[in-house]
């Protein structure tokens, strides 16, 4: 699309879609603009983050003291299940797709995503999918109560009738993610500005390209496994039903074939965002760009051959335990390369500590802690003790909260001035960071001790000796949770009353997105920029 055509169209008539946003609700319902869709993804994800967060607080309120205080165990189970499902599929994944929508076209110098109409569709499926999922809470039998990993036969033979809604909800989320991934790949492969070779792409774009391939590879497997559940429940097949010749352990194999790459889907784009932010505030080039790209690719490859480390206790043969143990530990190598490169980028840089940088540094430190507890869990013989305890809960919250979610916060603070044209309040941003940081550690660090001492996960009651650590965790959880309302206020304040941002925004920022005015115009790069 050349600039000349655009100007022409603007002069001639007004109903052409390239003119600027439509008015009212129609703008959001029918938009094909990557920036509008990106914003919708991000707002949707934030709403889901609050919904899933409320569920987490319900859980923590019940666990504040031993004994059953606030709810029946059945409801507690629904809360743990929906908290997991909503945070994974509703908060983290859509947030990254939102960031991809906003940033990838601007970072590769493209006017929009490759498939704008499909982009609209893949967003608008999500509210329906989650309405379907959440509506089960108000139905007879209650919502899904089998844990976010929905192991058969809990999710088939013993599931509430509403499980069918859950299955269709997961189908819809899967379709949305697959369409999003196709869009990202087509944009990156076909729409880069002239001169931008693959090895000149910003790391956020690289990590998203690899994430998109992971999504293409595993979301269909997730769709397959829920389809098998559907058939077992309604059509008399016996994929997971031992009585009919099936095998419940098969469920775990197929689920984790999806599930393990899924955890990298939730972290790789955060790696990418942090790799943009740390060089900016270190005022240095990223250390080891090539090794970063290869490390991400190796992590993605290894993620396909480690799934059974989630299943050490199902009775794997010794050979299987050893293979999956060593393969899992191998992932620490490329991850170590990445952590080393981030630290080396900061080394002797002229560092400043604006909010995005604070979140990024916390990301590097706390994600590493989560990685180390992952290594402990990877040791097959000791995993028999840690399995299904709070140690596992501590581990995956350390990689997901300060990993994925701090990565998202860092990215939002970093690019928010470019999106809305105003600076956020640095004071409020720092307050948000420190309260989140303290709250998050207060919540999840004691869980390591609880797990090692033997407290099982997914149980609404516990033995008395766990009471102190649990009450500390609950206080931390409410601190972390309420702090996120400050973030909401900060974003609204920034949009309404923030000071005008410059085009460059950050002194040390490099990349095509910073060559655009702030706020980024509704249509950007209608003429591709030249990359040297």
């Amino acid at each position, binding site marked *: 699309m050349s600039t000349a055509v655009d100007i022409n169209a603007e002069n001639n008539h007004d109903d052409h879609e390239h003119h600027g946003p439509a008015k009212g609700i129609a703008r959001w319902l029918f938009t094909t603009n990557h920036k509008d869709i990106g914003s919708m993804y991000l707002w949707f994800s934030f709403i889901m983050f609050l919904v899933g967060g409320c569920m987490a607080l319900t859980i923590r309120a019940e666990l504040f003291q031993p004994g059953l205080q606030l709810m029946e165990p059945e409801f507690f189970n629904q809360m743990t299940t929906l908290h997991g499902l909503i945070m994974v599929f509703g908060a983290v994944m859509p947030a990254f797709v939102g960031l991809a929508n906003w940033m990838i076209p601007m970072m590769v110098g493209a006017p929009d995503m490759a498939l704008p109409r499909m982009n609209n569709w893949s967003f608008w499926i999500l509210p329906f999918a989650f309405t379907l999922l959440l509506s089960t809470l108000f139905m007879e039998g209650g919502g899904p109560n089998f844990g976010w990993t929905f192991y058969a036969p809990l999710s088939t033979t013993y599931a509430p009738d509403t499980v069918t809604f859950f299955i269709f909800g997961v189908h819809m989320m899967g379709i949305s993610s697959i369409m999003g991934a*196709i869009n990202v790949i087509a944009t990156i492969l076909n729409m880069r500005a002239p001169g931008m070779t693959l090895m000149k792409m910003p790391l956020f774009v690289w990590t998203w390209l690899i994430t998109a391939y992971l999504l*293409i590879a595993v*979301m*269909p497997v997730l769709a*397959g496994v829920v389809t098998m559940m559907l058939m077992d429940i309604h059509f008399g097949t016996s*994929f997971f039903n031992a009585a009919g*010749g099936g095998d419940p352990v098969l469920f775990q194999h197929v689920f984790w074939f999806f599930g393990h790459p899924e955890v990298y889907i939730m972290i790789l784009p955060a790696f990418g965002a942090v790799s943009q932010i740390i060089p900016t505030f270190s005022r240095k080039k990223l250390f080891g760009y090539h090794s970063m790209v290869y490390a991400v690719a190796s992590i993605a490859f290894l993620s396909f051959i480690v799934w059974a480390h989630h299943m050490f206790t199902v009775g794997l043969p010794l050979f299987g335990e050893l293979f999956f143990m060593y393969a899992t530990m191998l992932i620490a190598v490329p991850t170590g390369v990445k952590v080393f490169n981030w630290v080396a980028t900061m080394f002797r840089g002229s560092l400043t500590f604006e909010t995005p940088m604070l979140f990024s540094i916390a990301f590097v430190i706390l994600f590493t802690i989560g990685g180390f507890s992952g290594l402990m869990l990877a040791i097959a013989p000791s995993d028999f003790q840690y399995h299904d305890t709070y140690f596992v809960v501590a581990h995956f919250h350390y990689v997901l909260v300060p990993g994925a979610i701090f990565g998202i916060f860092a990215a939002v603070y970093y690019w928010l001035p470019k999106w809305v044209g105003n600076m956020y309040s640095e004071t409020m941003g720092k307050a948000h960071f420190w309260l989140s940081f303290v709250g998050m550690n207060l919540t999840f660090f004691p869980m390591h001790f609880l797990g090692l001492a033997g407290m099982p996960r997914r149980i609404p009651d516990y033995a008395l000796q766990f009471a102190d650590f649990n009450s500390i965790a609950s206080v931390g959880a409410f601190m972390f949770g309420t702090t996120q309302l400050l973030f909401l206020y900060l974003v609204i304040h920034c949009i309404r009353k923030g000071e005008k941002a410059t085009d460059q925004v950050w002194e040390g920022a490099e990349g095509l997105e910073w060559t655009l005015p702030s706020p980024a115009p509704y249509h950007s790069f209608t003429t591709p920029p030249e990359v040297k």
Partner: protein
Amino acid sequence: MTQTQNKHGRTISKLILAVVGMFGFGFALVPLYDVFCDLTGINGKTKGRYEASVETQIVDESRTVKIQFITHNNESMPWDFKPTVAEIRVNPGKMTQVDFFARNPTDRRMVAQAVPSLSPSQGVDYFHKTECFCFNQQVLEAKEETLMPLIFVVDKALPKDIKVLTLSYTIFDQSQFDQSGFDKKAFNQNKEDQVIVAGSL
């Protein structure tokens, strides 16, 4: 513009093909998983019917192996189901019969399927069943009881370090398949062919 659209078209068709392929791969994992267990002999699957040959009839008197029998009822399976002996010592190569007791305490006709599993899994290749009630479904009328035979032989080639083999049976209620108008004969035939698959527990 058309050139970009062509490029998009090619990219998208490849990706959609990959999506469809991976959806199929998810289902292909079901048989692949069985094939893998079969090839590697892991997971304690016992083999199907074993045809005894003269060579295997020679008994190794120099050692004995302890065979333990355990039974489980699957959830909501009301039958009384237990081995008549908890454990026996056998010489490798010696054909042995053990009976299992089953009783249907309910007031209705029931169909059951027992699924075997052997531990340790390294012993699977050396434990041969020439006759087993688990090769077929069992039908018991209301209040009926029966003794079900298992005839087995432990291979002389059993590694010396394996001194105990534990054979576990889980019994499943199959009555729903009996009553819901399945082609019973075809189903049973299928069951016999598939006994290895059923043993994949």
